[in-house]
C-alpha cells in the first residue's frame, strides 16, 4: 500500500497554514506530476518530517543514555564494563 493510499484511511482535519511560496510551488509541481492533490503531497512531506524528528529525538536519547552509562568511571572500571577483569598481580 502506497503512502497516498494509506493517508486516505486516516482521520483528517481541515486547517489553514501559511507556507513559504517556493515550497508551495514545489509541492504543487510534485502534485501535478504525480496526479495527486496538494493535500496529499503536503501530508506526505509532513509525515516524513515528523518521522525524521522522532528518529532524531530517539537518536539523541540513545546518545545521552550511552554517555550516562559510561561516565564517571576510571579506566580500570571501564575495562571491567568491557568485560576485562583486572585484579592485583600476585607478588613474584
Amino acid at each position, binding site marked *: 500500500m502506497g503512502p497516498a493510499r494509506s493517508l486516505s484511511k486516516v482521520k483528517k482535519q481541515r486547517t489553514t497554514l501559511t507556507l513559504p511560496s517556493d515550497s508551495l510551488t514545489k509541492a504543487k509541481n510534485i502534485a501535478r506530476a504525480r496526479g495527486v492533490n496538494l493535500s496529499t503531497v503536503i501530508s506526505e512531506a509532513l509525515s516524513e518530517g515528523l518521522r525524521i524528528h522522532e528518529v532524531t529525538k530517539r537518536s539523541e536519547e540513545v546518545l545521552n543514555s550511552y554517555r550516562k552509562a559510561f561516565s564517571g568511571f576510571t579506566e580500570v572500571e571501564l575495562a571491567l564494563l568491557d568485560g576485562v577483569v583486572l*585484579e592485583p598481580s600476585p607478588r613474584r
Partner: protein
Amino acid sequence: MIDPASGPFLFDTSAESWLARTKHSELLTWVGAYLSHHPFHISAITVLERTRGYSTLWRRAQEESRESIEASRIAYLSALGPVWPLNGAIAVVAGEIMSLLPDPPTPPRRSHHLAESHQERLARWRFDGLIAATALVARMPLIHNNAADFEAVRSAIERTPERFPDLGPLELIRCASLA
C-alpha cells in the same frame, strides 16, 4: 569513511563503549548519523559482559556510590537496540572458531599493578568468538576496537572457508576508521 546509512552493523563490546565516550567531533557526527538510520546492533554476549561489569562494580562499591552505578546500568539498558541472541547457528560457527583458534592471540591485559588472569583472558577470547560468529550469522560487518583479536579470527576463517559454508568472510571495521 564508512557511510552510516550502509549499516546496520554489529558493535563489539569495547567498540560500543568507546564510541559512546568519544570526544572526536567527526565520530560523534558519524554516530548521530548512524543512529538516524539504524540502531546499534549488539550480541547478547555484550549485554552479559556489561551487566557482569556493572554488577561487580556495584558489589565492590561503598553504599554511597551504588546509586550512581545502578543509574549507569539503567541508562545503558534503556539505550539498548536490537540484541542478537545466541542460537544454534551461532553456536555451530563459534564452535568452529574456538576449535580453529583455541588460544587467545594476545596476552592477558595488564595495567600498572593489575593484571587479567589467564582464565579470564580465555573466557573473554571465547566471548569474542561468539560475537564474531554472531556477525557472520547475522551477515553484518563487525565494528570493533580490538584489531589483534578479531583480525586473527578473520584470517583463520579465510584460510578454512569450507568450515564456514555460505557465510562469507568476516567483515571488520575499526572504530577509528568510521569517520
